[in-house]
């Protein structure tokens, strides 16, 4: 055995005792930024390039616009992250966005007063949470593969959305409803405030609470977690339910932003959310990834789209670029993991 360095038994500065770099070794970005935040330098690089290449990028109007665009993706990605951390995947979030969007749109359309909208909001959130809970029960209790379960829910939720609306768009919606997403508070868009709130709560729950610890434990080794007394089923059901709930929140915000209830809204959002998580450092094998990482990932995807538009880049190429970025993120992750392991043995 080669590692015989000790943590001093008197407990002197255990944090300082973290691995010191060997003289011939260059610090990797990951070690500078902490685990799972490899997306930050990429994000900064994009911001730098766009600031130099475009005069309009660093304007308040554009940043506000960018924030609003990214917000909905980010909220959905944070829900997706919870599922991915348990080594699962939630393909149904895009359809849940559509379902909750039309439920709230119909409620707003039918409402005669402002207060009449509230049951619609609650119902939309409940529908999302219910779809998630069904996913969670099928995965946790019936041990069905998450990919198949949520693929089924993708079809069911989208189908119900189309049935509910008869395939037609629900519009026009009254202006006050658009204020939810369109309004601002202290000069910053409500959407951005909401995203920051969801990010803060998720990050806190994952890092500091028992539930967060259990999410990582289940993703790391569900059987070991079970033997140690972790309520694995409960944790799994909770993450799928929260993913559904956050997707429903995203759906409400999207309907408010668009000012109508489109039955096809949210199509493909599940892939955007997964992309954001992976680019932000999450591993589909579970237990790797952070809330901040998911936000960074969503911002990178958003920046690519926004910057591409500003610079007049062909959107077809942008789609290709996002695909490449996902592969690059995964390759980088594997490479770092491999180097880490070879060093350790």
């Amino acid at each position: 055995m080669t590692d015989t360095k000790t943590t001093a038994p008197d407990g002197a500065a255990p944090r300082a005792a973290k691995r010191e770099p060997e003289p011939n070794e260059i610090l990797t970005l990951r070690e500078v930024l902490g685990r799972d935040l490899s997306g930050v330098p990429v994000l900064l690089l994009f911001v730098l390039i766009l600031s130099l290449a475009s005069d309009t990028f660093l304007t308040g109007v554009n940043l506000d616009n960018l924030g609003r665009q990214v917000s909905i993706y980010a909220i959905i990605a944070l829900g997706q992250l919870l599922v991915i951390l348990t080594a699962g995947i939630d393909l149904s979030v895009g359809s849940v966005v559509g379902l909750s969007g039309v439920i709230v749109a119909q409620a707003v359309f039918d409402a005669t007063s402002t207060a009449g909208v509230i049951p619609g909001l609650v119902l939309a959130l409940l529908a999302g949470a219910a779809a998630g809970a069904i996913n969670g029960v099928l995965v946790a209790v019936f041990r069905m593969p998450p990919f198949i379960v949520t693929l089924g829910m993708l079809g069911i939720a989208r189908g119900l959305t189309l049935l509910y609306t008869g395939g037609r768009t629900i519009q026009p919606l009254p202006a006050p409803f658009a204020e939810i997403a369109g309004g601002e508070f202290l000069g910053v868009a409500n959407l951005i405030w909401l995203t920051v709130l969801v990010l803060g709560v998720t990050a806190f729950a994952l890092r500091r609470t028992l539930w967060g610890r259990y999410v990582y434990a289940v993703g790391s080794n569900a059987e070991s977690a079970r033997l140690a007394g972790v309520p694995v089923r409960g944790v799994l059901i909770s993450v799928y339910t929260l993913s559904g709930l956050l997707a429903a929140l995203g759906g409400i915000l999207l309907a408010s932003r668009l000012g109508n209830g489109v039955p096809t809204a949210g199509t493909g959002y599940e892939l955007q959310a997964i992309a954001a998580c992976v680019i932000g450092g999450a591993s589909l094998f579970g237990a790797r990834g952070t809330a901040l990482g998911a936000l960074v990932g969503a911002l990178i995807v958003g920046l690519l789209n926004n910057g591409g538009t500003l610079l007049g880049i062909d959107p077809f190429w942008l789609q290709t670029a996002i695909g490449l970025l996902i592969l690059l993120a995964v390759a980088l992750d594997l490479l770092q993991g491999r180097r880490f392991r070879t060093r350790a043995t």
Partner: protein
Amino acid sequence: MAPVLELRGIDKSFGPVQVLHDVNFSAQAGEVTALVGDNGAGKSTLVKCAGGIYPIDAGQFYFDGKPVQVNGPRDAAELGIEIVYQDLALCDNLDIVQNMFLGRERKRGLVLDEDSMEKLAEETLASLSVRTVKSIRQLVSSLSGGQRQTVAIAKAVLWNSKVVILDEPTAALGVAQTSQVLELVRRLADNGLAVVLISHNMNDVFAVSDRIAALYLGRMAAQVKTADVTHAQVVELITSGRSGELGLHNGSGVAS
């Protein structure tokens, strides 16, 4: 002195197959009791009965000389019986402290009390004279096999346990790591714990144990002091259930 853990007359069947027949087994504080036997002799089943994972069909369970009921893993854990499984049951992506406290985290209000968990983990490792890990905030995935075993054992010791059962702790280890783990096993007993060591390796058994319990086809062939038997006798007990005066005494080993 009464043994810390004593099982008397344990029977256990899975469906039509009777795996344990009238097994007696005891473990003393401050001693390493090696549990040996061929594959399928019932070692793991016996240990799982002791840990409350399998309910027993018949027999009595004594702890510190008093009869107790063990109806599940929680009862066993409350008595202070901890099992370290062969596959270790650690989470790779959690660090050492997180693994040691998994399932029994300390909280301060809503949040996890990281400082106190870190301190207690450090004290436990120090009390076992573990010097092989660099930082207790290291991920378990970065540890060697011996270090993982150390963490798993430390996890079992953390809870003021009285009986620690180790299922083949050295099976997957190299020579140097094996001796490290055996030293740790010895230290646990020297600290006053009753240690039960399941092993196939006679060298390990003779290196570290005070007593040897040999199972043969679901029956306890003999439970003897290590000093009183030879290597060859133990091998005979394992392979045929008897050795001279020791062991089962009606030929095939089928009790009357």
